[in-house]
C-alpha cells in the first residue's frame, strides 16, 4: 500500500495551479482533501505522473453570501459545511448531507469540491447540490464556466471537467424562506457510503399544500438522480400518507438500481423508496 512514484506540486495561488494543470496535462491529478485519492494512490489504482496539491491555494475555502445565493469555495471541508453558521442558516440541507459523510476525521479533511469532482455514485454532496439546483463554477487558463449538476456528473466517478479545469466554487441559490429540507440515508455502519440516500426540499403554499418539491437520490445509479417527473406531479397535493406513498411508488417506477455486494437490486429499490419517503416526510415537517 505504497503509491507509485509521482511528482508533487503545491502551488500557493489558483493561477499557478491552473498553469501547472495545463502544462502537466492529463497525467496530473488534483489533490484536495485526499480522502478518496490517497487510498487509490496507495492501492496503485490511481497512478498519476504528478499531483497538484490545492491545499495551499489561497481563497478556495470561503463562504460568502451574494444576493440570493451562497458561494462556497471548493476547498471547504465537510466539517465546515456541517458547522458553518451561514450554511446552516441558509442551506441547512447541505449541512445535514455533510453530517452523513464518513467519520469526523475524514470530514475534517474531505472537501466539497473534492467530493463533487470525485463523483462517487453513493456520495451525499452530489445529490444535495442536484436538489439545490446549485451551479458549479469551473476555471481553466482559458476562462470560467458554470455547470448545472445535471451536466456536471456524467457517470460513476466521471464529470464534465476538462483536463485543464478546476472546480473552484459552488453557487447555491438560497431556498425560499420556510422551505423544508432533509437528507436521509441508510448505511450499514455509521459513516459508510449510503446504500441509498435522498435529499429533499419542500415548500408549501398558503393553503399548506405542496408548492414545490425537489428530490434527488444517491447510491441508486451511476450519477445522482433527480425525480423531476414526481416533483411536478406533487405540486398542489396535500401532505399526508397518500403523498408519501406516491413518492415511494415513483422511486420504484423510475429507479432501476443494480445489485452489488451489499444489496440485491430489489432490496436496494425498497431501501431507496423508503429513504426517499423519509426525506420527503421530514422535509414536510420542517416546512414553516
Amino acid at each position: 500500500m505504497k503509491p507509485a512514484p509521482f511528482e508533487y506540486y503545491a502551488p500557493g495561488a489558483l493561477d499557478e495551479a491552473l498553469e501547472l494543470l495545463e502544462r502537466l496535462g492529463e497525467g496530473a491529478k488534483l489533490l484536495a482533501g485526499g480522502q478518496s485519492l490517497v487510498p487509490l494512490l496507495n492501492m496503485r489504482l490511481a497512478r498519476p505522473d504528478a499531483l497538484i496539491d490545492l491545499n495551499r491555494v489561497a481563497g478556495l475555502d470561503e463562504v460568502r453570501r451574494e444576493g440570493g445565493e451562497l458561494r462556497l469555495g471548493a476547498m471547504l471541508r465537510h466539517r465546515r459545511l456541517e458547522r458553518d453558521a451561514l450554511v446552516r442558516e441558509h442551506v441547512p440541507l447541505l449541512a445535514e448531507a455533510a453530517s452523513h459523510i464518513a467519520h469526523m476525521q475524514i470530514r475534517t479533511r474531505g472537501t466539497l469540491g473534492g467530493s463533487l469532482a470525485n463523483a462517487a455514485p453513493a456520495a451525499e454532496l452530489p445529490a444535495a447540490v442536484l436538489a439545490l439546483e446549485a451551479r458549479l463554477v469551473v476555471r481553466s487558463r482559458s476562462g470560467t464556466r458554470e455547470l448545472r449538476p445535471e451536466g456536471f456528473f456524467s457517470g460513476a466517478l466521471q464529470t464534465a471537467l476538462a483536463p485543464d479545469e478546476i472546480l473552484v466554487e459552488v453557487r447555491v441559490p438560497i431556498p425560499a424562506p420556510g422551505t423544508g429540507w432533509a437528507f436521509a440515508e441508510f448505511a450499514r455502519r455509521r459513516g459508510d457510503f449510503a446504500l441509498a440516500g435522498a435529499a429533499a426540499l419542500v415548500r408549501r403554499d398558503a393553503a399548506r399544500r405542496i408548492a414545490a418539491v425537489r428530490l434527488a437520490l444517491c447510491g441508486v445509479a451511476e450519477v445522482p438522480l433527480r425525480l423531476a417527473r414526481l416533483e411536478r406531479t406533487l405540486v398542489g397535493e396535500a401532505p399526508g400518507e397518500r403523498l408519501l406513498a406516491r413518492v415511494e411508488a415513483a422511486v420504484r417506477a423510475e429507479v432501476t438500481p443494480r445489485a452489488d455486494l451489499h444489496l440485491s437490486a430489489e432490496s436496494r429499490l425498497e431501501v431507496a423508496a423508503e429513504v426517499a419517503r423519509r426525506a420527503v416526510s421530514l422535509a414536510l415537517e420542517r416546512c414553516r
Partner: protein
Amino acid sequence: MGAWVGQPLRRREDPALLTGKARYLGDLTRPGMVHAAFVRSPHAHARIRSIDTAEARRLPGVHAVLTGADLPADLGAMPSMLAFEEHRPTPTWALARGRVRYVGEPAALVVADSPYIAEDALELVRVDWEPLPAVASIEAALAPGAPRLYDDWPDNVAARFETAIGDAERALAEADVRLAETFSIQRNFACPLETRGVLAEWDAHRDELVLTTSSQSMHQVRDYLAAMLRLPTHRVRVIVPQVGGGFGGKFHFYAEEAAVALAARAVRRPVRWVEDRLESFVATVHAREQRLEVKLGARRDGTITAITADIAGDLGSMHHTCSMGPVWLTAVMMTNVYRIPNARVRARAVATNKTPLGSYRGWGQPQANFAVERMVDVLAKKLSLDPAEVRRRNFIPPEAFPYTGIFHTFDSGRYAECLDRALATFDYAGWRRRQAEARESGRSVGIGMSFHVENTALGPSRGLNQGGCTQGGYDIARIRMEPSGEVTVYTGLCEMGQGFTNGLAQVCADALGVDRDAVHVVTGDTQVCPYTGYGTGASRSAAVGGASVRKAAGRLRKKIAHIASHMLEASPGDLEFADGRVSIVGVPGRAVTMGQIAEAAYRQVVRLPEDTEPGLEAVAAFDPTAMAWPYGVNLAAVEVDTRLGEVKFLDYVMVHDSGTLLNPLIVEGQIHGGVAQGIAQALYEELAYDEHGQLLTGSFMDFLVPSAAEIPRLRLDHTVTPSPVIPGGTKGVGEGGIIGPMAAVANAISDAVGHEFNELPVNPERILSALRARRSAR
C-alpha cells in the same frame, strides 16, 4: 483470597498505550534495515511456469528477489500441530514452489531500501502463471468431478472426525418431535488492528537468527523455524514486541516468518516486513466458515433426546498451524450445556482455493453454539414453550459434575442459577410485556437468548498428545525475587493486549504478600522466558498461567519463609506474609521486610541459614488435570426496521461465570470485546469470494467491522463457581464473550420478524428478501 486477586485494578500498561508510547513492530528500526514485500498470487489456483526477477533486481535500491526456487533445498515444509482422521498432508513452503492455491499466496519476495521501492519492484517481477480451475466454496469443492487442490487426493476432503454417544439415529426415530435445520456461517477473520509483521536479524558471525514477530506463540515460532531452517534451537531467538491484538490470527506460524528470516540471511542486513492492510485480508488466516446439517429429537415436554450434526468446514488451501481443529471443536461442542444422551457428530474439512483456515477467538465454539441455540429456539416455538424453560429443562444439573458428554469432561457449573440471574438482570418478563405492546403498535421487536459454555485452560498435556496434538497444555512460570525485594515473573505466554500480565501480578502479589506494583511480569523473549505448552490461546493465560505463577510463587514462598524463620528465630508455621513483610503471627513488631530477606539471599549471605543456597528463584510447571468450563448467557432485545432490513438493539445483557475473577475490570473488557466481535459475526463481517476464488470484500470498505456506534451498551453481570480443577478456581474468559452473541442476536431477529434466520450474517439483504418471500407467499 488475598489482597490483590479480585480487585478491579486498572491495567498498568494503559497510560503508555493511550499516549502513543507503545512500540509495535512497525515502530522498530535497526541500523541498515531494509524492507520486504511479497509477490502474491492474483489467481486462486495456478501453476507457476516461471518467474523472471531480472528486471526487478536491476531496479536501484533493490537488494534481493527470492522465489521458491531460491529456498534451501532442505527447507522444511510448513508445519501443523494437529492431525485428525484421514489427515492428508498439504506440503507447502515459505514461498510457493510451482503451484499456488489461493489468492494472496506468497510466490516471491523483494528486499529493497524502502517499502516504496519494494512495491515498485513487485511490479517488475514477471510471473508466468498457468491458471487452473478453482473451487471457491464447500459445495463446489465437494461436487462430483470438482477440480482437486492436491493431485494425489481422490477428492478435496483434507481430514475427518466422527464421534458418538448413545444411539442418536434410533433416538431420533423414536422422538416425539424431530427437527432438521441447515446452518451456514460465513467466513471472517481475527482482523487485529495491528497487522502482522516480522523483523529478522541474522548475525552472520554467530550464524544466529533473532526474529521479532507480532505473534501469540513465540516458542512455537522458534521451534518451527529452527526445524525448518535446520538450525540448533539456541541459534534462534524469537522476540514479541508490543502486540496490537491477535485474537487467534497471530497464534499461527506463517510462511512470511520463514521467508523474511531467509531474506535477512541472503542480504546480510536486518529485514522488516509489515503486513499492509490489503495483504492482511488474504495473508492472515481466515476463520469460521461452515455448513451444518443438524437434526434434533425431543420429547413433548421439551427434553432433548438426540442430536446429530454433519459439519463441513471450509479449510481453505491447506492445513495451517491448527489444521481442522476449529471444525473438530464445533463437532464436539454440539451438545452444548445439555444432558443429551444420544449424539452423533461428523465433521469434514474441505479444501478450497481460499486463504487457509485458522484460529479466531472461540475457534469452533461459536458455530456449534449458533446451530444448537438456534435449534433450541425452534424447538421451543414448535412446542409453544418459553425458550428459557426449554433450556432449563435440559441443563446438565449441578450435581452431575464432573460431567462427560460427547467428548469433553465439564468440571463444574450451576447453569440454571446463571440463567435466572441473567433473566432477572435483563428483566425478561418486562421485555416480553414490552414486546407484546410494541407488536400491538406494529413494531417488530424480538427477544433472543443463548446459553454457552467455553472450553478454557486447555490441557491436560497427556490428553492433548493422545489426541494428536504436537504440543502440551501446561505452562511454566519462573519467579525471581530481586535483591531489592521486588519480584520478577517470567512467563512464556505472549501479551497481545489482553492484559493478563496484570492478573498474573495480582496472583503473585497475593502469594508472596507483596504489593502488586512490586511485581513485574516479563513476556515476549524466548531467550529469557520459560517454555509454555500450546501457545497463547484457548483462554489459557488466566487459568493455566495464573496457576503456574501461583505454584512457582508457593515454592519461592517456602524458601522465603525458611530464611525469615531463621532471621526472626521463629517457626515457619508462625509466620505471615503481608504488605511486603514477613512477621510473626500475633507479634506485629517482629518482622523482616522482603528487602531484608532478599539482601540476605543475595548479598549478606552470612545471614542465611547454613543449609540454604543463595538466591531467591523458583520455577514451576502447572499442567491442568482437566479443562475449566466457564459459561454464560447472552440476552438481546432488538427492533427490526422491516422497511430497511436494519437491526437496532434495544437492550443487551451478558451474564457469565468464569470462576474466581483475578481482575474483574479486565474480565469485563474481555467480555465487551468478545460480544462486540460476536455481534460483528452476527450482523456485519463477511469475507465473500466469487466463484473463481477472488475475494470480494478485501478492504475495510466492504469487510464491515462494526465501530462503537454499532455496538449497544452492554449490561454485564456474573456469578462465581470456582473451578475445582484449577488451584485458585479461576476459569478462562478470553473467548467467553464471542461464543453466544450470534445465536442470541439471530434468535432475537427471528423472533422479531417471524422467520428462522439460519445463515450468518443476518444482514439487510437477508432480512428484506425473507420479508419479500413471505409477502409473495401470501
